[in-house]
């Protein structure tokens, strides 16, 4: 039943309806779990998911069509195609930082591909988890889509995946725009608790102070003089993560490097946007994934050195960013930096582009999704070959002979002349 086009469309339409009708509850749940501002919830979670559904609805008929494939001379006469079929019953485990989007976006792909689904949302975002249980039960087909809540030791797994997304800032760049985009990509997205948030910046000695000044200026514009009291900033998700982050800040070799921020409030679990300059390369903050509102800046002599730094940093990041006007540097960056995805002159925007695959490589993960890539991730692409009974070739069967070998070689080589001469007994084996 999950295979029919109508079933898939009904589920996706119901999901859209769910978001329209229950938006207020979703925003409230995200605020409870993460102090997420309505803006971030609407844009980074709800609107993105709506777009995902709409895109899938628009393209689904097209995705479900078999893809024709060419057939070689050696299998003439025949026709071939690739048929997408669902894998069966899939398990989706999602994270706590975008608990709504990261739970339902893969579900969109799984449903579009015709699978039955079990969703296990993160228990670290408990209010959203319960809400998902309730809403999925009400709006989606209970016989094929279920939500299971509960504790699974996944917190450690999240930390072990190094997603250190570096940002390289060249001195030849538009500083005003660069600073703004870095800020909104880092602190405007769940206070840095985003898999594609900039983890650290690499820039040259000379440019660093200019960059820090620009960041400070814009941070004040966005969050005011007392960011801990700003309603536009999300909080750290829970006290475990809060302790983890303060431990990174309080490490001896690092605490003296804070050039902005550093304030924290344990009661509200908020940490102010914090910038650190010229941190030692062996400090915890550079080597562990931050996933919070701390932004260290690593200094290099020449901007080209940053590419080596990224490639030798141990794991391939989920995303890597470069801000520059220099065409050659852009080309070098794209060709040599291996990451899940790259963005030049912006942060994280590639997530919203449905025609680009979103996923990691190496330590940052495997597989990709969004748009058609979601559909493909949850499909098996079945190869189908249609043959006719005509065109029987005795040379396929034993007993084998030198003549058959000659003819077969000619056919494989695709040479008409060779085939003719083999048939006439002219060519050598």
């Amino acid at each position: 039943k999950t295979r029919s086009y109508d079933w898939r469309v009904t589920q996706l339409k119901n999901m859209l309806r769910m978001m329209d009708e229950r938006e207020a509850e979703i925003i409230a749940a995200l605020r409870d779990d993460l102090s997420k501002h309505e803006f971030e919830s609407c844009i980074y979670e709800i609107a993105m998911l709506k777009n995902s559904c709409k895109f899938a609805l628009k393209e689904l008929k097209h995705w479900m069509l078999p893809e024709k494939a060419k057939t070689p001379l050696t299998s003439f006469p025949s026709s071939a195609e690739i048929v997408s079929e669902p894998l069966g019953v899939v398990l989706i485990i999602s994270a706590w930082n975008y608990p709504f989007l990261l739970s339902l976006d893969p579900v969109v792909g799984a449903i579009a591909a015709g699978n039955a689904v079990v969703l296990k949302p993160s228990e670290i975002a408990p209010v959203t988890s319960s809400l998902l249980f309730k809403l999925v039960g009400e709006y989606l087909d209970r016989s094929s889509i279920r939500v299971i809540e509960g504790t699974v030791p996944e917190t450690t797994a999240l930390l072990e995946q190094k997603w250190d997304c570096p940002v390289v800032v060249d001195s030849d760049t538009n500083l005003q725009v660069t600073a703004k985009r870095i800020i909104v990509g880092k602190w405007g997205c769940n206070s840095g608790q985003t898999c594609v948030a900039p983890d650290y910046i690499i820039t040259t000695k000379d440019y660093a102070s200019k960059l820090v000044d620009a960041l400070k200026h814009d941070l004040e514009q966005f969050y005011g003089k007392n960011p801990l009291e700003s309603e536009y900033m999300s909080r750290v998700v829970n006290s475990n993560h809060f302790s983890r982050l303060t431990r990174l800040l309080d490490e001896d070799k690092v605490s003296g490097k804070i050039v902005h921020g550093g304030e924290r409030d344990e009661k509200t679990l908020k940490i102010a946007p914090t910038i650190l300059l010229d941190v030692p390369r062996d400090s915890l903050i550079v080597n562990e994934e931050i996933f919070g509102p701390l932004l260290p800046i690593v200094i290099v002599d020449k901007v080209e050195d940053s590419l080596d730094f990224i490639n030798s940093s141990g794991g391939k990041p989920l995303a890597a960013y470069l801000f520059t006007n220099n065409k050659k540097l852009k080309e070098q960056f794209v060709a040599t930096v291996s990451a899940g995805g790259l963005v030049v002159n912006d942060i994280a925007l590639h997530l919203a582009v449905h025609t680009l695959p979103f996923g990691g490589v190496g330590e940052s993960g495997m597989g990709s999704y969004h748009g058609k890539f979601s559909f493909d991730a949850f499909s098996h692409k079945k190869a189908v070959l249609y043959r006719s009974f005509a065109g029987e070739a005795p040379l396929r069967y034993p007993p084998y002979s030198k003549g058959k070998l000659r003819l077969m070689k000619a056919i494989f080589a695709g040479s008409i002349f060779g085939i003719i001469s083999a048939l006439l007994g002219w060519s050598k084996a």
Partner: protein
Amino acid sequence: MEETLAELRETFKSRRTRPVAWRKKQLNAILNLIHDNEDLIFKALYKDLGKHPTEAFRDEVGVVEKSVRDSLSCLEKWVAPKKRPLPLVFFPARGEVLPEPLGVVLIFSSWNFPIILALEPVIGAVSAGNAVVLKPSELAPACSKFLKETIPLYLDKQAIRVIDGGADVGEKLLNLKWDKIFFTGSPRVGRIVLTAAAKHLTPVTLELGGKCPAILDTISNSAEMKVAVKRIAGGKWTPHIGQACIAIDYVLVQEHCAPTLIELLKKSIREFYGENPKDFKSISRIVNKHHFERVHNLLKDPEVASSIVHGGSVDEEKLFIEPTILVNPPLDSEIMTEEIFGPLLPIITLKDIEESIEFINSRPKPLVIYAFTKDEAFKRKVLSETSSGGVTFNDAIIQFICDSLPFGGVGQSGFGRYHGKYSFDTFSHEKAVLYRNFFPEIGPRYPPWNAFKLLFIRLIYRYDYVGLLLLLLGLKRY
């Protein structure tokens, strides 16, 4: 082994394997390797498996050549970044997907087609620009030795190595961290590979096996029926006497067709191998004593033995088992629950051919389903109601050489795929790249947030350009 891996990592890091010229050089080297050593390869295959040169060419040497030539002619196209259209709201911006190599990859090949199953993945890995370690199967020692000695003479030693040995070597290799592991073999060992890879978060492609069924529908035209049965016989016995992951494992047929099927099969066996297959040069052997005993044991169950209608004789010394046909052995016997991988062909009769669908669905998903039928509605049913790696209608085995079709399994028969461009993709990471400009800057992206900014972005996400215009002109309420 750690040293080899470290050296290959250095080579990969030095970007030596990236230029298209290097990749083409390796591919041409493989072609030369095959051309220069064709006789040696035939000898090694005959020594390990009793394979006749024509079969060896058709299934191994010829396929390698074809694969290399296809890759050479398409490589530039595969390597090029693919532009991706972006919605207007992102203007000005450019999106593309850029394939890049994964790094150092480990390839395990199987013993039944020791040349093609080793070299085909190497072709993909090298086209994609990776460094490679190849571990051929020790059950085909002459071929393994050939690969170990010849590959370094043709391919770049700094980037491509062959490590031979038994299961202990395989285990040690699995403890190291690779950027990709490609495995061809049994589901049992596939599990071991996947478990080891999980520790390092290494992506894996598993090409496993399964019981590939052939459905034979009633075909009224007797000439076509003859062709169908000949192809079934060919699909069972000619790929290495049934020791192939895509060989037909068993046949499902309607009761009343069974006698005709059996007669025609016997005729085909006689045509292929003469009256005394044991003495025949065109017939392969079972690879070794262990597998000989395994296959022979399948016949020892008395209920199975009594279902034999043709063949059944064996010669332990020559590792020969006669092409054997059985009718309706018990469904819970080992011959019907385990992959046969040998020259025994059970025929299961059904009252109605449509029952074949339920029969197949109640068993693990196979690598291929073969269906011989002229009924278009039945074809559609088979396609949409069963799941398998692939489906081939009215023929067998030949889908292996269609490079434009992905070759791989699903469920128990494996995951991941290769051949042609799919080989290139399997060893690549498709990196998403987004290029943005500094202008124009959109104020509403940044805090402090307010209702105007919220509505602005909502409209952008909906691609509601008219709404946006109205908002900007102050004609929309927020």
